């Protein structure tokens, strides 16, 4: 250090603190953004813990009064949330399972076998996934009113696709197939050829290769897609809004509306409902952040 002239040392110090300040500024900025981004949810949480009478007296921009889970209890019982959660479950589980099953079948063929219409199918699936749903809803709505199903049965209680879990599951599967096929076929292309070729040499049939060789290998992609698709199907309320009529069959995302009275809105109760409905996806996100993000990025980047 003694060898360095004061001038140079000065420059050196200034530069060093300059770097440090830019780091501090970066953290301050990112922290501020994070706070702004979390604020709406934190505010919803805060409001949901306050009784309506307190906020009516003190105003929403206030501290004080009591804090409790009264709104949550009320939302659960008055809003009948458990039964709507069940409705969502009835749709989400089969929809995600069938989507992944069918997508893995298509992706297996498209990624592994020379097929004359390979590119055409991949385009069809991908384009279908990108379409705004409103493009298809008018005829779809009519189709669901015309298409028969055996009734009464587990599939339908009115003999139609309309107003049935079956119909909502079917449209979710059809729409999400595009994305999942695209992701899975990209993933399958990155897998080593050797295992498949070894199986071919051993005389394995195509179906055995799909079932015994391919399925275990694509498990990481499945994990990512399960997380992502579960969130998406859970969050949807558009298809149910369009294709369901019976209020008691609606998914949890639509049930939020029931918490609003016809003439009077209790914001505290609505906030509690919003937090309850958001909780499952937030838990999934925090537990499986890695899968969530890798699922999204698998779809956007090749391989």
């Amino acid at each position: 250090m003694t060898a360095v002239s004061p001038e140079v040392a000065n420059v050196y110090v200034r530069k060093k603190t300059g770097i440090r300040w830019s780091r501090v500024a970066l953290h301050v900025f990112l922290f501020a953004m994070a706070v702004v981004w979390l604020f709406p949810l934190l505010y919803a949480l805060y409001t949901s813990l306050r009784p309506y009478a307190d906020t009516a007296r003190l105003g929403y921009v206030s501290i004080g009064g009591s804090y409790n889970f009264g709104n949550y209890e009320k939302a659960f019982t008055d809003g009948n949330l458990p039964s709507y959660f069940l409705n969502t479950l009835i749709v989400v589980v089969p929809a995600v399972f069938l989507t992944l099953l069918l997508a893995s079948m298509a992706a297996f063929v498209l990624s592994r076998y020379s097929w004359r219409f390979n590119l055409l199918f991949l385009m069809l699936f991908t384009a279908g996934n990108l379409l705004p749903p409103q493009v298809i809803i008018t005829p779809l709505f009519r189709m669901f009113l015309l298409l028969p199903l055996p009734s009464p049965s587990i599939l339908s209680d009115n003999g139609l696709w309309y107003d049935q879990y079956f119909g909502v599951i079917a449209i979710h599967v059809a729409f999400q197939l595009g994305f999942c096929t695209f992701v899975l076929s990209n993933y399958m292309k990155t897998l080593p050829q050797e295992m498949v070729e070894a199986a071919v040499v051993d005389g394995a049939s195509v179906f055995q290769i799909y079932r015994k060789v391919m399925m275990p290998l694509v498990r990481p992609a499945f994990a990512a897609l399960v997380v992502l698709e579960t969130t998406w199907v859970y969050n949807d309320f558009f298809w149910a809004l369009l294709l369901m009529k019976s209020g008691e069959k609606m998914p949890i995302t639509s049930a939020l509306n029931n918490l609003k009275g016809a003439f009077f809105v209790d914001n505290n109760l609505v906030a509690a409902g919003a937090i309850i409905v958001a909780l499952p996806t937030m838990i999934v996100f925090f537990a499986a952040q890695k899968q969530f993000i890798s699922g999204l990025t698998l779809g956007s980047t090749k391989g």
Partner: protein
Amino acid sequence: MTADVSGSAAPTPPGVGAAPASKKKRRSLLLTRRDKWILALLLGIPAAVHIFLVWVPTLASVALSFTSWNGIGGLDRIKFVGIDNYRVLITTYPPFWPAIQHNLIWLGVFLFIATPLGIFLAVLLDKEIRGTRFYQGALYLPVVLSLAIIGFIAQLFLSTDQGLVNGVLGAFGVKPVDWLGNSSLNLWVILIFASWRQVGYVMILYLAGLKGVDPTLREAAKVDGATEVQTFFRVVFPVMKPINIVVLVITVIESLRAFDLAFIINRGTNGLELLSTLVTNNIIGEASRIGFGSAIAVVLLVVAVGPIVFYLSRTLREEAR
């Protein structure tokens, strides 16, 4: 670039994908008749489901848009009316042009504010910093929320009597503003909440792309004395082209898909008209005008086809080779 990898032990890189043609041919010769049936079924079943429920209705939308049908009575009541629906749509249907304008505003806000902000945050988060997981998680959280929930949270902030914004403004003596009911304000305020979600979505996609950029490129730029801003615009941004395309397409498509927030707030009326809400209101309303609703859907389809084709031609190009 990638050399011929056939026969080598290295895993096949993406893009190169399938093995060379000679190899393919050899493999297809090994397929038995039964195998071919299985392959046809494995692809045929998912394709049938997808085509039947997505592409058949798409084509039906186009066909129905030239007809008049109120949905009552059988299919034989459908009457061909030529381009009447489109003529009415463009000339006399009041919410059509506002809807187009609102979709464009939506696109503009996403394209010029939300998406660049998401990219900017991704670039910042790409630096080695402490607590990056916290920052990422916070910014990304809105993306996992249902738009139904975001709609309700928007109401917690914006409702006239109980909303937070008016509560704060009231403390400064500002009279309550009807944010969601005022047709020249409501679109802009719900766009804040739509952007709340979009920023995180773009951020995470872009961040993943940035992680894939060869670090030696940045080092070389640094050695050459480039500033960080120069490095990003001259070096990183160009090599990120595939991700830039994805982000651009997602931005456009998400603006065309805009629906949920507007529909939750007021069913997409009074300042919140969007193409998507017009279609929906024409079929689940009291009067179901199927031909007319389909014509609006076709307008949406035509606008969406551009970015979709652009995306397909870019991402699937190497498969065609």
